[in-house]
């Protein structure tokens, strides 16, 4: 595996990028796991449990890469950090809500994930591209699952439409926080590591907006494609350690066993 950095200056920013990727997956994976035993239908219960394991597995992939660059183990990163040291976006921290919110969040997240991973395919940091290629095989099925549910629930009945629209109203401003600029991001753009969050946001909007409209859901956005303007506030801060109050509870839960017996052999 070629771990040589594309430029010396980009090291700090690259580590930020890896942590943002890992923490998004870890925290959303944990939220998805909260449906185990509670989803509205058995099949979705199993599907969400399955996706939760996949997301946490992806987090481990990024944290293993992080370990190769820093020596800090995935266990230490997952179980010894304080909430303010996490770099996930606030979007993934919010409680799972009702099934409509979960489905809308999963769709918006999975699409962003796909756009992000595809942008890594020709990264100057080769291992990023190799990893993306591997993860995309699984992520594209997550997206198929989530988009399938959004498509079917968007305009199925009056109630499903009302609840899905309410979920879009809540989730959309939060989801924009996925594209918050990372510290040192310009270094990564200059070094050809990835095109930057602004470019990813525009690629994401280009797909998310027409898809939601097609299924009778209205995102808070004016116009389309290049001339598309976001009309809502952006709920960001997570990439800089400004998290929601919900993250602490999630991390307390996740780290409970580890704190009782630090350094376990799982």
């Amino acid at each position: 595996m070629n771990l040589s950095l594309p430029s010396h200056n980009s090291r700090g920013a690259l580590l930020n990028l890896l942590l943002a990727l890992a923490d998004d997956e870890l925290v959303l994976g944990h939220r998805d796991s909260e449906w185990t035993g509670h989803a509205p239908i058995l099949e979705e219960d199993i599907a969400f449990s399955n996706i939760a394991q996949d997301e946490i597995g992806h987090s481990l992939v990024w944290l293993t890469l992080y370990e190769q660059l820093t020596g800090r183990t995935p266990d230490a990163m997952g179980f010894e950090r304080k909430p303010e040291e996490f770099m996930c976006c606030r979007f993934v921290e919010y409680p799972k809500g009702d099934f409509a919110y979960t489905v809308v969040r999963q769709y918006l997240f999975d699409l962003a994930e796909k756009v992000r991973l595809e942008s890594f395919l020709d990264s100057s940091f080769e291992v990023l591209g190799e990893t993306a290629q591997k993860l995309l095989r699984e992520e594209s099925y997550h997206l198929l699952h989530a988009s399938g549910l959004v498509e079917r629930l968007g305009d199925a009945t009056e109630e499903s439409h009302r609840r899905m629209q309410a979920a879009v109203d809540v989730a959309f401003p939060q989801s924009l926080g996925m594209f918050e600029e990372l510290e040192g991001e310009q270094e990564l753009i200059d070094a050809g590591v990835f095109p930057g969050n602004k470019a990813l946001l525009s690629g994401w909007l280009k797909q998310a907006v027409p898809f939601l409209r097609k299924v009778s859901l209205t995102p808070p956005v004016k116009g389309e494609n290049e001339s598309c303007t976001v009309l809502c506030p952006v709920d960001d801060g997570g990439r800089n350690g400004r998290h929601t109050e919900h993250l602490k509870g999630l991390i307390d839960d996740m780290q409970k066993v580890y704190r009782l017996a630090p350094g376990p052999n799982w």
Partner: protein
Amino acid sequence: MDTQWETYEVFHQSRRGEPHSYVGSVHAPDPHMALQLARDQFARRLQCVSLWVVRSGDITATDYQDDDFFARVTDKSYRDPKAFDAPDKLHPE
């Protein structure tokens, strides 16, 4: 309005050339979602190269009440393959 999803019967193939075997059923709103949900239920642990789903209602079945359908009223032991060993596997490794 009935909001219960229909059931689909799921058939799983572990390798190309093997027969698809019946593994169970899933609830789904349509065949495409049924395939996706079947993937999560049945292809998660088992190795899988192909899945089939069939709407349960599309299967025409015999009636358990109709015993006569399968009745053997005279001795038909001559039909049983007793004189040779049938291989367990029709598709050897």
